[in-house]
């Protein structure tokens, strides 16, 4: 699987190229408020080009999940709303569409924390992903096999009730379920969370393959900065509901601040976790 990595040259997209061809998704300074009072996003803008992999990085509570939910229109269910700004997908404003419309247009989100349908079997979970499709049972069957090929473990557990599968299995189910909708764009919210290292790699590989072979664009919210920057070609860093830094993945990787705070290799080599004797003194771009 790791062979795949070389297949993708690092020079894929430069910012200028991004800007030139109309981006698939662009989020233009959106503001999000929860519960009518809690202002969470304070003007976030980002773009994802056709076929791009864009990473959304940032600490806890920075607003990554909120951003993704704003795009896929899942905020309403949490009493949140986009009060300012626009979201454009494929040349069309999408803030007022239902999630169903968005899935039909090819935007699907893999939610943070798995959210499998507990009482459905793994296979049924996957099949629900194909809800919006109408291209016939055979196609769906084939896609199911494709997902099983990506995640053999799921094939073993296909008849298990999803509620009783392990965390990793649930994560795979959730991603597989999203794949079943044949998306053009996937919003992945922390796909690596709670996965074994081997699996993390696998999942990122799969993500890249999807991107590569099937042209799925990807917006990826991740804590695992290391991994994310390795696979993405562009990145945004969120802090406190604002984008504080963006740039090409390679550029970000070389940024000193990013190194220090997100990669843990500030000032040279990776340090042991044991060595952080005193609590970190935070340096922030903003705030």
């Amino acid at each position, binding site marked *: 699987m790791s062979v795949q990595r070389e297949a993708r040259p690092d020079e894929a997209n430069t910012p200028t190229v991004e800007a030139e061809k109309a981006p698939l998704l662009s989020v233009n300074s959106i503001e999000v*408020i929860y*519960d*009518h*009072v*809690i*202002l969470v996003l304070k003007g976030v803008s980002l773009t994802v080009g056709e076929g791009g992999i864009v990473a959304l990085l940032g600490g806890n509570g920075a607003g990554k999940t909120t951003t993704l939910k704003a795009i896929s229109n899942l905020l309403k269910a949490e009493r949140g709303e986009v009060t300012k700004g626009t979201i454009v997908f494929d040349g069309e404003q999408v803030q007022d569409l239902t999630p169903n419309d968005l899935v039909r247009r090819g935007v699907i989100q893999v939610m943070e924390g798995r959210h499998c349908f507990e009482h459905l079997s793994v296979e049924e979970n996957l099949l629900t992903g194909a809800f919006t499709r109408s291209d016939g049972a055979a196609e769906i069957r084939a896609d199911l096999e494709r997902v099983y090929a990506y995640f053999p473990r799921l094939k073993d557990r296909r008849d298990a009730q999803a509620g009783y599968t392990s965390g990793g299995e649930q994560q795979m189910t959730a991603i597989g379920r999203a794949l079943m909708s044949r998306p053009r764009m996937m919003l992945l919210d922390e796909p690596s969370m709670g996965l074994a290292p081997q699996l993390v790699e696998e999942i990122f590989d799969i993500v890249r393959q999807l991107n590569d072979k099937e042209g799925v664009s990807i917006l990826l919210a991740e804590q695992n900065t290391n991994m994310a920057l390795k696979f993405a070609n562009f990145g945004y860093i969120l802090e406190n509901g604002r984008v504080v830094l963006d740039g090409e993945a390679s550029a970000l990787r070389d940024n000193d601040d990013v190194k220090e705070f997100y990669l843990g290799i500030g000032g040279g080599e990776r340090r042991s976790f044991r060595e952080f004797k005193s609590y970190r003194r935070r340096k922030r771009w903003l705030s």
Partner: protein
Amino acid sequence: MFYREAGQFKTSYAADQAIFPILQDRLFVIAVLAVAYLVIPFISTPYFLVTIMIPSLIFCIAALGLNVLTGYAGQLSLGTGGFMAVGAYATFKMTTMFPELNIVIVFLLSGVFAAAVGVLFGLPSLRIKGFYLAVATLAAQFFLIWLFNRVGWFSNYDPSGTISMPPRDVFGIRVVGSGAAPEVRYLMVLTLVVVFCLLVKNLVRSRMGRTWMAVRDMDIAAEIIGIRLMWAKLSAFAISSYLCGVAGGLYFAVYLRTVETIAFDVVLSFVVLFMIIVGGLGSVLGSILGAFFITAIPVILTRAPHDLGIPISVDMAQHLEVIIFGSLIIFFLIVEPHGLARLWQIAKEKLRRWPFPY
């Protein structure tokens, strides 16, 4: 800006843990109490006292009870009517068996019987959860009503099984039964409500309350941090039914003065449940707001056409009332699923930030 905590620093944990740590809240509560004690009894008509204030206050206690169980301990119950019936019949039996016993003590004691019954019917909660439990508690509701209907002893063998409250005095003042002034009844119930609110508020911010809330929010995790689920759930049932029992006693003795079992049928359970949901689950304030809201709205709606001079027939009015009442409930649930208490909180939040939107 009007409502600020800024500048009110706490220098001790004791001060931080006071019931109303914020000055404005304290003043507000004092004002409300002053109005309730010093203004309302003197300016309101007996009608207002008897049909709105007294039942609302009595329902405050019942709602408080159910809120302990459902709002704090997370055990959905539809047996409230049954537990209230236990309180009512206990009040009746005790006061007829021991006519000399101070009636307030009778009220307080009758809750104890309800608590015992509550614990018994709470036993299934050790295994059953959520709606299953809710439906199972209906067993209490139906069984108890049947029992009181059935066994003549409970109604002193009244041929129709109806119980009615004999007059009783406290310190020479007639507080219940024929001849009791609405003001006196009101003040007695008000005092009980204030006392119970205080006690329950204290309970829920102490160990007991945290135990309940932990069980409510995630019983598995609660067990794993060392909470004895059985004890936690049964204590919630006990205290909840105690309050419901007292409320039932008052409902019978102070409000209706005579009841047959149907007064405690399942509709009553739903009414109380409405109160805590519309008022706010897990909130003492919510219980109070909910009780007043749900008691007053139908009365207001029933009267509205008459008072406004709209000539519609009573049945039309009643149908409209039912529709409006139902819609109001849905409306409030949509506006704020966490109830009036949360609306109140949000309002305070807004005041705090005023004039800034966020």
